[in-house]
């Protein structure tokens, strides 16, 4: 009989309830598995619970992590991503299932890269059944990725060129309609960014220096 400690982090009670139901369903289906379930609706609560467990020298085995959750009051934890990284640090062995509605490739990719979660669910991909099976899979034979994530991998594999973080970041910012001079999260000057852009144009084999074409292409190729 394996007793797992599970932490559900999602700002919507109804969703956390759903995860709970799923966990209970697993418990029901798998006789040797039971869950001790904790729920947090924001970063602060999540942090409290994590600290509490850590203080008591106990670990959390499984985490359902939503990315867009209210940040902590001290602004140290801005989103689920930060919480995930914290969990990775505090409980290296715990298995995290990122469950998000994000569907843009850039975010998915960056989460995968930074956090390397055992499970990655795009909320709309999954049905109750899939949710249940994903939990089992992550516990027994990780990782588990939902369909959209797998598609992304596939897209990336078929591309014969590689974009680095900065390229992606630029593309992502441009796709949000951010003006060149307003791009802040990139450690480059405007001219540097322009140079990158021109390079990207070449990569995508684009003639006009229009952002639109670039973004459309980047989306098509699954970079954003």
């Amino acid at each position, binding site marked *: 009989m394996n007793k797992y400690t599970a932490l559900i982090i999602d700002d919507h009670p109804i*969703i956390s309830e*759903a995860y709970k139901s799923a966990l209970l369903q697993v418990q029901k289906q798998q006789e040797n598995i039971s869950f001790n379930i904790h729920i947090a609706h924001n970063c602060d609560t999540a942090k409290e619970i994590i600290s509490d467990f850590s203080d008591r020298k106990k670990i959390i085995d499984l985490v359902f992590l939503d990315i867009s959750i209210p940040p902590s009051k001290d602004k140290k934890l801005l989103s689920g991503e930060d919480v995930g990284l914290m969990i990775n640090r505090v409980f290296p062995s715990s298995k995290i299932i990122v469950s998000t509605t994000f569907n843009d490739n850039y975010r998915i990719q960056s989460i995968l890269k930074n956090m390397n979660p055992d499970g990655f669910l795009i*909320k*709309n991909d999954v049905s109750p059944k899939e*949710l249940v099976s994903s939990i089992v899979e992550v516990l027994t034979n990780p990782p588990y990725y939902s369909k959209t994530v797998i598609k992304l991998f596939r897209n990336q594999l078929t591309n014969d060129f590689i974009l680095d973080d900065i390229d992606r970041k630029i593309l992502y910012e441009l796709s*949000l309609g951010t003006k060149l001079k307003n791009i802040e999260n990139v450690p480059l000057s405007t001219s540097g960014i322009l140079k990158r852009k021109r390079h990207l144009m070449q990569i995508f084999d684009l003639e006009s220096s229009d952002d*639109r074409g670039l973004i459309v292409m980047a989306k098509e190729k699954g970079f954003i």
Partner: protein
Amino acid sequence: MKNSILIKILLCLCCVFFIGIACTSSISKEKKPSKDTSKQDSIALWIKASKNKKLTSSQQQKQLEKAYLKLQSTTKDTLHAKNLSSIAYRYLELKDATAFHKINNETLQLALQLKDSFAIADAHWSYANYYYNNKNYEKSYFHYNIAYKHFEGIQRDFETAKMLYQMSFIKGIYRDYTGSEVLIIEAIKKFKALKNYEQLYLSYNFLGGLQQDIQEYDKALFYQEKALAYLDRFKNKINYRSGIFNNIGSTYRYKKNYTKAIEYYNKAMSKKNRPTIINNKAYCKLMLHDTLGIQQELFRALRIRDSLNNNNGIIASKINIARYYEYAKKIPLAFKYAQEANIMAKKLKNGSNYLETLQQMANLDPKNAKQYLERYIQYNDSLIGVERRVQNKFTRIEFETDEHITENKLLEQQKNWIYLGSFGMLLIISLLYILKVQKSKNEKLLLETAQQKATEEIYLLTLEQQAILEEKKVQERNRISQELHDGILGKLFGTRINLGFLEITKNKKVQEQHQYYLEELQDIEKEIRDVSHQLNTDTTNTDINFTNLIAQLLQDKSILGNFKYELTLSEQISWKTVNELVKVNLYRIIQESLQNIIKHANASQVLLAFSKEQEHLVVELTDNGIGFNSNKTTKGIGLKNAHSRIQKLNGKFHLSSVKNQGTSIHIQLPITITI
């Protein structure tokens, strides 16, 4: 630059002015004859007809009236004045004083108006003649003098000399011999220069007469011989010959060389002056004590003169008859004739004869001699007084005429100054006006530039505003997208999963339906996700502002100008990379061109196309309006503006238009512009 333009404008103005004058004058020169020739001809004919001696004087006057009436319809020019003068002179000759005065006055006024010196002098000449005929010598002299000054002023030597001759003649009448001599010598000089022998003959003859009067008989003979010599040099008239011989005879008579006098009188004998000659000859014979047949001859002369009503002749005859009777010692008879002559001379105001008869009477009637002599002295004094007065008057006339003419000259000069001044003023005023116009034009241009700048600023502001709006839109869309994605989708997901975990165990059908609805919910989520997704992807369409503006502009103008339009935008153009300044200028040019199309072209269709050729942005605006000759038309300010705008952007601007086939504007601009 500005100055040179001004000068050019002035030159042009002057040219136009002078060409205008030249045109009008040439027109007047060309037109008048064709229109008036026939009139002038008929006027000349009528004037000529009035000289026809076969007509009665009233018939002649009628001809003149016709000429005068016709003349009224011709232009008031020099020729008109000339004709008027001719008509006036004819009236003078016909002795119609009223008509003469009226028309001659008209002539003079017109001549003064036209400043036609010749016509002025001519009119005065006519007046002088008129007064001369009426024996009003003072007035006559006055007019001769004016005529003389005018003729002299325009160097009409013949007429000038003629006036001098006439003036000299009048001075002679008033026994101003010195004055008269001065004038006649002046006249002779001119006639000599003109080689006018007839006038020279007359002048020398007159000069001889003058010398006779001052008892310089040798001098008189000298001049008379000269006159005689000139007589052979022109087609002489018999009267001239007999006249000069008579005069020479008289000179010899005064010299008391009666034999020689008779010799010349014999030569002088002609039909016309027969009584004079007879009379003179008889006197000579009497002096030579040759009384044979004298009485008969004297009475023959008197008879002829009586029949001719020649009063002065009668007086002369009677004086001689009185002399004869005195010689024949028939004193009462002599006194009778002398008295008769005296009364007649008094009546005719024939001063010299009056004095002579008084003397005769004094001699014949010694008893009353004192009385006659007193009368003689009194009359002689008064005569001298009159002559002095008249002589003074002549001097005054001369002085006044001189003054009058200098005054006229002064006035003329003044007038000229006024003309010059007003022309200068006009020039200055027009200059000032042009300056003002130029200034206001410049101001207008400045204003236009400022306005243009303002419009450009407005355009930029509009663009900015639109960009902000677009950004806000995007933000809002993103917010909605986010909301849909994170909030609604999440909740829906939660609900669906929870529903899925609900233990629905009733029957199979319900379970199937339950599953179906779950799947349906998942589809809904997917749809929402797609919507959210789309909302997000559309955010890249942020730079369609310029084309939007152009489309809006076209639409607005098409309603105003009532034309259909077609806007073609090449996909290849990335408007975001096109410099805002290029856009502003393009927008302005298109705006102005459309304005022109509305105003002038009367087009029903307008095509606007933006395309890309290599690194150039190409704009083509074509209409199917009435077009214009693009070669001839001077560039308007709009076109010039467009040109300079494009030039500033290193682009090319080309306009081509064919009459009735529309106009097309082609603009080519480099896309990447460094300004």
